[in-house]
């Protein structure tokens, strides 16, 4: 377990690889015919992400810069990085899921090379990643990268 200062952190077995269907769901977002369909898929994707128990919705794990609340936990196992994240807003949770699909179970090097901007561009969602947005996505992406980087031993 890395520098998660929350007094109460999820047990390591909760950090798991995401089901393969989630990658398919990301492709559906990319191929959506219109914005309505895109956001519908984003929300469906968010629904498939496990929810954090209330006891883990702690200030320490909260990602700043987010109008909605979002929490992020990190766990490293055998050189792979795993995350648990949740939000009280459905679209934000879907956007988090998109990030996790690209980073869950990846190595430190893979995560450091992960081009977030390009990824969201391909999905037609580049606008959502801007630091000037209050959805906190940019802060989340940075936190995901930071956790991976700082946990290097």
């Amino acid at each position, binding site marked *: 377990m890395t520098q998660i200062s929350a007094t109460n952190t999820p047990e390591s077995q909760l950090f798991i690889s995401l089901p393969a269907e989630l990658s398919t769901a990301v492709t559906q977002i990319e191929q959506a015919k219109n*914005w*309505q369909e895109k*956001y*519908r898929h984003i*929300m469906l994707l968010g629904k498939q992400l496990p929810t954090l128990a209330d006891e883990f919705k702690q200030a320490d794990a909260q990602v700043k810069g987010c*109008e*909605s*609340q979002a929490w992020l936990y990190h766990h490293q196992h055998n050189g792979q990085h795993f995350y648990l994240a949740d939000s*009280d*807003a*459905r*679209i*934000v949770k879907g956007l988090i899921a998109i990030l996790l699909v690209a980073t869950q179970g990846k190595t430190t090097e893979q995560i450091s090379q992960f081009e977030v901007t390009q990824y969201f561009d391909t999905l037609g969602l580049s606008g*959502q990643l801007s630091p000037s947005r*209050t*959805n906190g996505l940019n802060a989340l992406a940075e936190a995901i990268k930071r956790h991976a980087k700082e946990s290097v031993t």
Partner: protein
Amino acid sequence: MKSISPLPLQAPFDHPAIRDQFPALKQTLGDHPLCYLDTAATSQKPQAVIDTMNEYYQLNNANVHRAAHQLSARATSQYEAVRQQVGHFINAAKPQEIIFTHGTTESINMVAYGLTAQLQANDIILIDTAAHHANIVPWQELAKRTGAIIKPIPLTANAQLDLTAYEQLLQSKPKLVALCHVSNALGTVNPINDLIAQAKNAGALTLVDGAQAIAHLDIDVQRIDCDFYVFSGHKMYGPTGVGILYGRFGQLDALTPMLTGGEMIKTVSFDRTEYGEVPNRLEAGTPAIAEVIGLGAAITFLQGLPRQDIAAHEQQLMAYLQQQLLSLGDITLYGIADNPLQNNIGSVAFNLANEHHQDVGILLDQQAVAVRCGHHCAMPLMSDLNLAGCCRASIGIYTNKQDIDQFIHALITVKELLL
């Protein structure tokens, strides 16, 4: 130089012609025309304001109050003319009662800082629960410095100021009462003249945050009879970076300057520095000259319009907006009094069923609808309402029925996606 006449002739009411003067509203975002319903955050600017600031930079740019040259004289007289103009606009007793600041926030900070020497431990400060953070935090800091005690004025169940509780609180002889004129989160309006009269009877100093009132109501500070009235230029079709602190002359004169330095002094030596007179004493440093002159243009613009007709137009739109929202179903409106149609100005606060306000905001944004979703810098109010946040649609002088229709149409789409 453009002369600024205090009361231009008023044109007959032609709404499309008014809207036409706001270039920012002519754009489309993606497939949709921009539907700007975030005027309470900041208003769009008419061409006249943009042109005036441009002209200032192109022809008259010089520092004010300083040089003997012609350009400086021109800039100074334009700048001082706006002080007079603002004074007329809100009916101050004299132009020296108008202080240029950077906005409402700075204005309140200047008062809160400036009163430090006048407050003592256990003095009471009453604050409107519906206040914007700008009208809360500076008072908390003042309380920290002096040992004064802050007491929130409670709200009734429908988020109106609780008049009975207010009367009771006034019996504790507060030193200062800080109210909002119109709430930025809900658009609720305080019966300000009565509230101030009561506070005065109780011997309190009074400050009114008029940031959300100034663009919608005719303000007469002498009739309101408050000690301080504050607002921002950018919420009244003027530029950002300029605001007003109105104060009764004697009260301004008694404030300790928050900023010291150039422009505000009479003489400086290493033994003894003497401050200048109000207003300069409270305007240290080079002011936002272009913005002040731009604010003058915004006031000229407003004064050239039939304000009665505008007020009626805005009231109709507010009623239409509220009705359309309610007829959608699954919508909760906040801060609606018993007679809703007369009691809110500028803003309508709502949530869609139990959906997160941010989800609603993101999906409206996809349809080029600009509304504000969040706590609206009024966290005490949100917790009073037991809300994490809400969405707020706010209108301005340029808003028309098509805007409301586009918004409602977009919200129907949001509802289909979320519910």
